[in-house]
């Protein structure tokens, strides 16, 4: 089933002419309404008239996390504050969170996009859907919620944190669909199995996102729950879940090109490259009013396939991500940068010891162990003294990244590699 066939199945020519018209408009809007963008364009010697269509896209300067940081919180807003109705945020590389502001129309378009995604996964107004993403600054909960309501499904806003309640309500309300992170769904599946409730649930479809996952995990959840599982993509800065989703063909995620203009660049040179070659995904929002983003660098590495899909849709497909062009990790759905861990360790006594983050997935839950080298300055010959040290590190990490990490004290020189360079992350999850 297709939610909006007129849009989702346009010809490539139609798609590109809509994109060109909208790009010209959004560039004009940000030039006249956002001082920061105007200065950036002027510095690049550009005037709005220089952008006549998508063929001129590569003339425009990129927008990065650093730009969001420099304009935090509302410096990129393209409308007066009275027009804004919502803020979402997620953690950034350093102090300031990545923030995005939305107008009422932005929220409506986001809901339309999310509804398209849900329809693609086979969800209809007859479904009962549990939203198991966090509700709050994180876009997952509210994004999936508005999309499902717009679609007309019956929404159960579970949020996160109470699996027991979620599985009970899944049985009681005969939920047929769920939206949550893939690792959480596997945890839910195991809980159902352990409680011998698997044959009492009516679940048939899951829409999973907010963290990378593999076909292997899809197979696992489909086998365990007898459902169909789909991948949904979104990011705080653009809008949460609803930017792209995979259809039943599972050959990439259809991205809503009438609202989001995707391109692939070489992350090292910044040059636009053939989108069938793996590079960094860059997105320009074509219809956003609150905080339009021009050539926003997502740091996600992928390719784009613009050929029509067997499902009937013509909207381009971004392939499953092949990695990140920065060092961001997604742990239990939370964005974590090694620099945050480094800053947290710095608060212990003013200098950063050697450290290593070991990320793993055990019983379908992400685990983070931070190994810290014991140095002379905090070496106590007393077990309790050392345990106090790990306690301090643990609370500093909790404050900085909002996750409970296991802290392991290790011997000196254990973390330095033979080439003298210290690696800070070992990710054993093999997600890409």
């Amino acid at each position, binding site marked *: 089933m297709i939610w909006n066939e007129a849009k989702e199945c346009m010809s490539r020519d139609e798609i590109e002419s809509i994109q060109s018209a909208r790009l010209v408009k959004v560039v004009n809007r940000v030039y006249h309404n956002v001082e920061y963008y105007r200065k950036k364009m002027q510095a690049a010697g550009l005037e709005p008239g220089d952008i006549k269509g998508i063929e001129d896209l590569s003339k425009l300067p990129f927008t990065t996390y650093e730009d969001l940081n420099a304009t935090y919180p509302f410096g990129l807003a393209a409308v007066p504050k009275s027009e804004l109705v919502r803020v979402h945020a997620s953690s950034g590389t350093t102090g300031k969170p990545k923030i995005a502001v939305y107008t009422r129309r932005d929220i409506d378009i986001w809901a339309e996009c999310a509804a398209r995604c849900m329809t693609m996964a086979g969800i209809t107004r007859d479904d009962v859907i549990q939203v198991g993403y966090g509700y709050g600054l994180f876009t997952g909960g509210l994004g999936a919620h508005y999309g499902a309501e717009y679609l007309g499904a019956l929404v159960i806003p579970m949020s996160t944190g109470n699996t027991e309640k979620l599985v009970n309500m899944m049985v009681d309300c005969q939920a047929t669909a769920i939206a949550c992170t893939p690792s959480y769904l596997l945890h839910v599946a195991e809980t159902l199995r352990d409680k011998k409730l698997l044959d009492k649930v009516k679940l048939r479809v899951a829409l999973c996102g907010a963290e990378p996952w593999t076909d292997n995990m899809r197979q696992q959840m489909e086998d365990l729950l007898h459902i169909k599982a789909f991948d949904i993509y979104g990011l705080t800065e653009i809008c949460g879940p609803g930017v792209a989703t995979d259809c039943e063909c599972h050959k990439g995620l259809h991205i809503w090109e009438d609202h989001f203009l995707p391109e692939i660049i070489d992350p090292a040179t910044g040059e636009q490259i053939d989108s069938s070659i793996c590079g960094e995904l860059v997105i320009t929002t074509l219809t956003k009013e609150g905080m339009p983003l021009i050539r926003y660098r997502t740091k996600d590495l992928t390719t784009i396939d613009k050929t029509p899909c067997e499902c009937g849709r013509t909207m381009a497909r971004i392939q499953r991500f092949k990695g990140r062009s920065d060092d961001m990790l997604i742990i239990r759905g939370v964005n974590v940068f090694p620099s945050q861990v480094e800053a947290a360790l710095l608060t212990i006594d003013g200098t950063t010891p050697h450290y290593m983050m070991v990320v793993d997935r055990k019983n379908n839950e992400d685990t983070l162990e931070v190994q810290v080298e014991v140095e002379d300055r905090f070496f106590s010959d*007393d*077990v309790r003294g*050392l*345990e106090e040290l790990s306690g301090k590190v643990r609370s500093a990490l909790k404050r900085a990244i909002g996750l409970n990490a296991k802290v*392991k004290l290790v*011997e000196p020189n254990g973390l330095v590699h033979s080439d003298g360079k210290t690696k800070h992350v070992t990710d054993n999850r093999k997600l890409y």
Partner: protein
Amino acid sequence: MLTKQLTIFMEDREGRLCEVLEILKENDINVLSASIADNGSDFGLFRMTVSDTEKAYEALKAKGMMVKITEIIAVTVPHRTGSLETILKAISEADINIQYMYGMASEDHQAAIAIKTDNQEKALEVLKKVEHVTANTN
């Protein structure tokens, strides 16, 4: 009564203890007493007194080990019922906390112990006044 002790930080992994003893053997250092404490999961502290503390310290440091020299109180008491209790009571009545203690090598009919408290000086004063407690010279 004060003696120098080596404390070595060790990750809880196989063979680490042997590595330490191997280094000491290579340097002709004799281990006089040893004790191991751990936090029950991932690390341990190997404490020992040796025939040449400075030399042992340098040798272990050179091998990249996290090692530290601490002064402990080393005393002997007669080998009979209640001896140990007498000294522990004296220390606790003086409001001093024992951080750890362990047995050391000693002559016949004597029990030798190593004690580390949160106030070593005061503990020494206290112990000097306890009958039959002498410094362990081993």
